[in-house]
């Protein structure tokens, strides 16, 4: 298959790439650009480990092809920490005990970021709706919900 040229903005930096159009966005991010915070858990759009934000929307990057991602703006977990330190969501995940093995964590954090952008004070049931696409096998989710509430509180202040 002929490689195509695509332009991608990842975490505010723009990249010119030559890739096969059917390459998964997940592989472009992990292998071509070394954003290994994006994880692969299932490859079929079920687990959410590969979650990234694409043009403001949550997507499973294992289900997006490079061709479809052309000219888009991508945010990965690597973008969240700044000179001021950890993002409140990252802090909240640590403080609430929402991290165990950490494999689901990047995806969870990005889904939380988008959820809180749309709804700065979600109820527990709205949090469940917002994170439904992200599996976590370790935590039993309770402390993840606590973390989202804590993050929402920190971000409102």
């Amino acid at each position, binding site marked *: 298959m002929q490689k195509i040229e695509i332009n991608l903005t990842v975490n505010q930096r723009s990249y010119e790439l030559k890739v096969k159009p059917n390459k998964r966005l997940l592989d472009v991010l992990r292998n071509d650009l070394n954003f290994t915070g994006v994880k692969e*858990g299932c490859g*079929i759009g079920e687990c959410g480990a590969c979650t990234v934000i694409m043009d403001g929307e949550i997507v499973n990057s294992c289900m997006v092809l490079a061709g479809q991602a052309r000219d888009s703006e991508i945010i990965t977990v690597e973008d969240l920490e700044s000179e001021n330190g950890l993002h409140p969501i990252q802090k909240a995940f640590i*403080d609430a*005990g929402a991290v*165990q093995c*950490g494999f689901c964590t990047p995806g969870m954090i990005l889904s939380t970021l988008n959820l809180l952008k749309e709804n700065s004070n979600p109820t527990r049931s709205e949090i469940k709706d917002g994170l439904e696409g992200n*599996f976590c096998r370790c935590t*039993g989710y309770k*402390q993840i919900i606590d973390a989202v509430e804590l993050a929402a509180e920190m971000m409102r202040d």
Partner: protein
Amino acid sequence: MYNEIKKSQNRLDGYEKVTGQAKFGADLNFGHQLYAKTVYSEYPRAEIVSIDISEAEKLEGVVDIITYEDIPGENEMFGRFPVLAAKEVKYIGDGVAVVAAKSKETAEKAVDLINVEYKEKQPLFNMKKAYNSKDDLVHTDKEDNIIEHSHHLMRKGNIKEGLQKADVILERTYYTPFVDQAYIEPEVIVTIPDPYREGIEIHGSIQNPYSIRENVAKIMDLKISQVKVIHSTIGGSFGGKDESVMLMAARTAILAKRTDRPIKMVLTREESMLESCKRHAYELNYKIGAKQDGTIVAIEDEVYTQGGPYNNKAMFANWRGSVHATGPYRVENVKTDYYGVYTNTIYGGAYRGFSAPQTVFGSESLIDELAYELDISPKEIRLKNCLKEGDTFATGQKFGPGEIPAPLADIIEGVCEHSDYEEKRAEYKEFNNKHNEKKKGIGISCTIRGAGLGGEGIDTAGATLTIDQDGSINLISDLTEMGQGMRTAHSQIAAETLGVSLERFTFINTDTSIIMDGGPTVASRGTLAGGQAVIEAARKLKERLKKVASKKLDCKKEDIVIGNDLIYHKQNKEKTIAFEDLIEVCLNDLGISLSAQGWYNPGPEELDEETGQGKAYPTYVYGCAVTEITVDIKTGKVNVDKITAGYDIGTPINPQQVKGQLYGGLLQGLGYSLMEEFEQKEGYLKTDNFDDYLIPSIKDMPDIDIKLFDIEDDFGPYGAKSVGELGIELVAPSVTNAFYDATGRRIREIPLNLERTLLGKSLSK
């Protein structure tokens, strides 16, 4: 009283995990690496007639291909696992050949070009049929299909006489399915040729590095010390990242040696589900005898555990099962037998609980049935029979002061009060009388669990602590961090013992070449045994520091106290030296070693193999759960509304992380109760990814309320016992018991999927 333990502390590897910086196996890349992929069997059982790799070899980018003929050492690892099948494939996940290529895509293509000719055979997929068969054998060098050393038994009192004394006898059979650990990270191994000792270096998602090292050395014909294993950040394991990574390590080691290049093998989810171990499927046959007043007088049980064609866990898990088969109850007459059975199916291994989820489902369903049979409240029958001071366990071990604590009655009372158990039972009865479409139910279950390995092996563990010039402290354990929080707990224990702050600690991933093998990270023993080794190492360092400080401060060693990062005279605060300054004196002025090894060895447990009687475990942990559900009568859907649970796990070193372990276990238990199952047809696997293997999402999370009962027990480090596995086992029986409460229908096979809840039987069997 404590500064660093019994206190919720943030986990030490939190930062790298929330920023995406933590390197998991798949994130490791080495120059010139090749990508390996396995060719799997096409049949559950077949003779291999020929393997033709010629087409694949011609493919551009293929560097090497191996089959069973290329194994330098023995083609058998612990539990009869072949690196690659030689004459016969014995289940659908057997590997036949492995390709190493310059890209993942090329490896995938090459796998399709390998042509294996098979002669199909009828697989032995039915466990009972395999158990009874003497002529159709999974392994023809054996006389039957019973897994070696997997028959474990318990004999107490006299079962015949016991049953004769009973007013009522119930006979029941329960079934549990194969289930997957379903860690979100699939298995990864990266093997590098070691340039310095003609050996190899293995990285990856490895729960038990030492057993991998031993098995790889054997198949490579290398010395154990030539194989170095380091685990990467592990994305969950729960017992599972063991046999599959052993196979991957073996295959990649051969390729690394032959090509002299790093070999990376990342399983797809489908491959992981195919090739990794499962929780054993069980058939539990029980006979229970009781008096009219609910007193249990005898339990007889025969349990069959399905092993698949290869197995290195049934011999241990069945022993654990046999100890716990009669549950946390006083039973004077016991006859228990556990058998592991070889079949041509996916195979059983370790998954959180290690026989407990299956056994507790059986025994807690049984006592519930007994309660209803005798018209006694399920709570009362448990209170009446549960182990109390002065009672003896199935093993003959005595409970009481100075012996093993027996707090279960208090826990049952506490949990029932907290959940309004009896009130809600009455309330739901009323509700059910008025409603036909929805029914509500409440169910209870209890458990006792031996802490640590007990009779499975000696509960040794090692740890090394090294203080560096700047006062930072390196901690390495032979046990692995898989997400459970062990390194934080160990660091807290070390900080507490040394009298310094947690910030000083750095934890190194287990590396088999720098710390001695103290046994596997299993049996919820990371804190229990590992913590003891950490305490010993810390005490050694503390002694050395105190000795130097006593000279420096000119006082007796006994008067020196270390606390809050200061070393001082206990009465005279003038005489104080900062931790950093003392370290400088030790290292720069005196040349004292500030590295110490701790080794914990409780010695072997004493057991009589003929009867199972003896000191099976040094101590036990306990739990009780009350679960409330709503059943939609039309659709059969079961919704778990609330779980209230109480546990005695000893001192919680880090309450936040302890709760995390319990919540996580509870949700896995919920999956086990309601949705998780492999669909198999005559040895073929129909379930291979998260679209058909369903695990709980955040939407399935019920209201969870956990109470910790910190019962005094001096056994573990600072009184801590075990927590990792305890959460999972109470859920399935409390859900099925609640289902009975709601509908009056007893389901003796999990999961409670719609087929079972609607029709009472599985459609797929």
